[in-house]
């Protein structure tokens, strides 16, 4: 339970430099971790050992090692050390491309480009990777050191990369390997074809069949082009060929049993290598998953338990949470039966991991939907519901390492492997156990997740950030966003709604004092209309009036958007 003072100082320094967002930090990357309880791999017992790390690599693991020069002594008495976690699938560091609002409309909904239809199999996650994205830090704090990341998009978002969750200046530096697994979904486009899931299913058939034909035609043309017109080329179709030929894997987003059946039915027709990703509830599809030997990436996002809702402070509750609480206090046979069924359903979700283990189905975790701060709690719930701790650890370390071809370098604590470690104050999956530090490639990071309350805005605090608002104007509700940025000691602001451009309309004469904000903006509608704002901020909420000369004044209210909304 004790960490040497030196370490604390180091961490403090690391943190300080981190905040300044500089890359190089610390003095050395060579450590001797002393007297730690090392769990070298899933199933292994904790053994009191020292770990010597040089230049990001585990140099040796064993008792009573000598401290070499240029190496920091890290006393980790009674701390437990595990191999760094590996995310089987995630969007860590991924920033979705912004919607092109001014893109030309297709001539008809049926004639959209591949891109407009959300079919972008050629896109690499790398193109959307942002090394300074906050999610990298968040998931690192949860123990993740390496992740397979997928791009965001529509029906077929694109291909994955494997990244290290270290600090870097740009995305390229994070990349360990280009996994090039293909994320596929049943997502339909809202405005163009395919606009529903039946359209999506039909489109998959066209795409894979044409990938097969494109490959055939290319071969035929290569063999003897005489007298032939060159076959037409499509980047998207070409990108699908390795998947159609089973050279690489298709990760199909399949949260529920129904999706699993559908992805599997399509696989039987089209013959790709199927991985089920972000699985939440397999239910009766377990037999299918077992017999077809489908690898599963289980979502670390369980439905919220009833008692968790009650745990929040009264002030932090949303109105509907209060209603939900009131509802749990009410009682009737009907409600009790519904509650019992709902609890049974929640339990079934919690038990999926344990069931997979018992069925002998290989699985790891998907973080596509996960919140970094909930991960340890969620894993605990799975363990409580029957998942063995060894299997849970394997799903976090050795299994993803093997799926991603990283077994030689990652997943266990062994000599020669990358120094990716999770340092905990208690054995993993034990109640109240905390990740104290995470090491990635020999560099130490603070693992503690601060329990601090979200920054109090207003009340002398900052209003920086995004705020959603609702106003009722002449019988209709208008919803939009305010964005405030600090400009020296004052603020700048924009209002963004359906009536403004996507960049928003500037708030002029913005004054913020004593929790009160005033300013105005102009809207173009049959001439320029001036709209005045007078808002009063209280914590993460505000209320006030919007007035339009000649139309009157209307109520407006809103709340702060969570800071982590961006990923």
């Amino acid at each position, binding site marked *: 339970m004790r960490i040497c003072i030196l370490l604390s100082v180091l961490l403090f320094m690391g943190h300080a430099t981190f905040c300044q967002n500089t890359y190089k930090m610390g003095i050395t990357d060579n450590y001797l971790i002393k007297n730690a309880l090392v769990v070298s791999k899933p199933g292994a017992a904790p053994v009191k050992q020292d770990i010597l790390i040089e230049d990001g690599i585990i140099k040796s693991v064993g008792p009573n090692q000598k401290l070499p020069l240029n190496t920091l002594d890290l006393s980790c008495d009674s701390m437990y050390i595990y191999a760094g976690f590996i995310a089987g699938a995630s969007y860590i560091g991924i920033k979705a491309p912004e919607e092109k609002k001014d893109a030309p409309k297709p001539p008809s909904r049926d004639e959209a480009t591949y891109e407009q239809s959300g079919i972008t199999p050629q896109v690499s996650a790398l193109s959307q990777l942002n090394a300074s994205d906050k999610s990298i830090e968040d998931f690192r704090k949860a123990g993740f050191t390496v992740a397979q990341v997928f791009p965001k998009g529509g029906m077929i978002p694109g291909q994955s990369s494997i990244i290290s969750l270290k600090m870097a200046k740009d995305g390229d530096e994070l990349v360990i390997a280009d996994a090039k697994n293909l994320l596929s979904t049943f997502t339909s486009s809202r405005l163009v074809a395919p606009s529903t899931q039946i359209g999506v299913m039909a489109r998959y058939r066209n795409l894979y069949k044409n990938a097969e034909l494109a490959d055939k035609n290319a071969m035929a043309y290569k063999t003897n082009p005489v007298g032939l017109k060159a076959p037409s080329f499509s980047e998207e179709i070409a990108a699908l060929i390795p998947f159609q030929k089973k050279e690489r894997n298709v990760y199909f987003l399949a949260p529920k049993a129904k999706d699993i059946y559908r992805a599997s039915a399509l696989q039987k027709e089209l013959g790709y290598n199927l991985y089920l990703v972000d699985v939440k509830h397999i239910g009766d599809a377990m037999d299918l998953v077992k017999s077809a030997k489908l690898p599963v990436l289980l979502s670390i996002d369980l439905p919220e338990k009833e008692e968790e809702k009650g745990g929040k402070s009264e002030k932090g509750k949303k*109105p*509907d949470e209060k*209603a939900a609480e009131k509802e749990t206090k009410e009682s009737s046979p*009907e409600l009790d*039966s*519904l509650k019992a*069924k709902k609890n049974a359903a929640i339990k079934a979700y919690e038990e999926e991991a344990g069931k997979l283990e018992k069925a002998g189905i290989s699985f790891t975790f998907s973080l596509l939907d996960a919140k970094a701060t909930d991960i340890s709690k969620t894993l605990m719930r799975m363990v409580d519901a029957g998942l063995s701790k060894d299997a849970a650890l394997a799903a976090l370390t050795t299994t993803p390492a093997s799926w991603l071809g990283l077994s030689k370098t990652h997943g266990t604590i062994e000599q020669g492997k990358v120094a990716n470690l999770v340092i905990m104050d208690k054995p993993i999956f034990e109640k109240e156990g905390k990740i104290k530090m995470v090491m990635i490639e020999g560099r130490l990071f603070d693992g503690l997740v601060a329990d601090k309350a979200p920054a109090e805005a207003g009340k002398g605090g900052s209003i920086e950030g995004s705020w959603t608002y*609702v106003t009722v104007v002449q019988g209709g*509700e208008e919803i939009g966003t305010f964005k405030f940025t600090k400009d020296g000691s004052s603020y700048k602001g924009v209002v963004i709604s359906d009536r403004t451009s996507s960049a928003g309309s500037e708030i002029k004469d913005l004054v913020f004092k004593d929790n009160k904000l005033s300013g105005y903006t102009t809207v173009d509608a049959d001439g320029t209309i001036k709209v005045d704002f007078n808002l009063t901020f209280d914590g993460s909420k505000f209320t006030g009036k919007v007035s339009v000369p000649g139309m009157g004044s209307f109520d407006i209210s809103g709340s702060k958007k969570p800071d982590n909304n961006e990923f």
Partner: protein
Amino acid sequence: MMKTKNTIYIVAAIFLALGSALHAQVVGKASSGPFLLKNAEIHTITKGTITGDLLVADGKIAAVGTNLSTPAGAQTIDCTGKKLYPGMIDGGTFLGTAEVNSISLTIDNNEIGNLVPHMEALTAVNPNAVAIPVTRVSGVTTVITSPTSGLFPGKSALINLFGYNPEQMYAGFKAEVLIFPSNARRGRFFRQSEEEQKKAYEKSLKDLNDIWEAASTYYKLDSIAMAGGKKFHEDYQPEMKALSEVVAGKMPLLVEVNRKEDIQAALKWLKERPNVKAILSGVAEGFKIADEIAKSKYPAIVGPILALPGREHDAYDVSYTNASVLHKAGVKIALRTGETENVRNLPFHAGFAAAYGLGTDEAFKAVSINPAEIFGLEKSLGSLEAGKTANLFICNGDPFEPSTTIEQVFINGWKIPMNSRHTLLYDEFLERTPGVK
């Protein structure tokens, strides 16, 4: 022989062509009697079932008894082996104010605005709406036709399904409609978020209370002014005027409410306003709180019966059994279809309620004497008794059975032509001439 037959066909064809050219809704005219319906099985509903005669004269049931003598000029109709029932009453429809549902310009029951209690459904009833003859030949003689949408969409009216102007059709009962605020989600494609829905719900509750408070104030000031022989308010305020009648308890309030929680809210709301003469309408989830409704003493117009349960976890048959559960809990019930063009299915809605626990007798009461009582018209409608309006029909079997033929309908004593667009098209097209070649 052949020739005669052809002549008949030609005459019939010309007649039909003429009929459709004039867009008439029926062929033939109603006749006024008097009529002596002899030797029928008379289901009086209130006074048992007797075999005897029934005399229709001057729009009324002049007498019910055995061996009635034939008055001068009366047409005798032999009803041996036939049954007589009072005309069925549908407690909630849009009949007469809607012609083609998808064409908004033919819909006259949903005025713009949340607060339009001064709208009168009766004003917009088209006596020649094509659905009216289609409905009445099924034995449904009388319906509530309601305005809809918004909070206070206007006044509904009870109409008889025969007449050439709304006054002739008006059956003596009106009620202000309140579509009680609901927090229900509307189907799978409901576009509001939970928060938006909640907000909208709270706003409409607040609107209701604000409006009510204003109407109460209006009523108070108006009564004082009237007592002083003066006119209160220079401004024309028809909304407040209309609602003040409800506040005063002079005009009944038809409260459209379906979801359990909404019914509870409505009952609580009404409890705080004891003057209001309320009738619940819809009441789809009444079965969940039947005792509470019974305790409130408000009558309930239940329906449609042929409807899906409102919740996935509900038993499949709750809409079928709802009326029976409410009746058994002691609620005075009537039935409604909530229909426009298919109000003719009222006997089938009643039949399902009967099959699922209500029983045939109670089910028939729920479409005859019960609604009459709920509307305060028990002296003129709802049963076959001397002195009542002659709304009745002759049939050859159980009126709820689809296989039964409704042979003759009387409304306000008028013997109605037993045809409609549906029968006329049947007559023309069963054996179309020319056929294929």
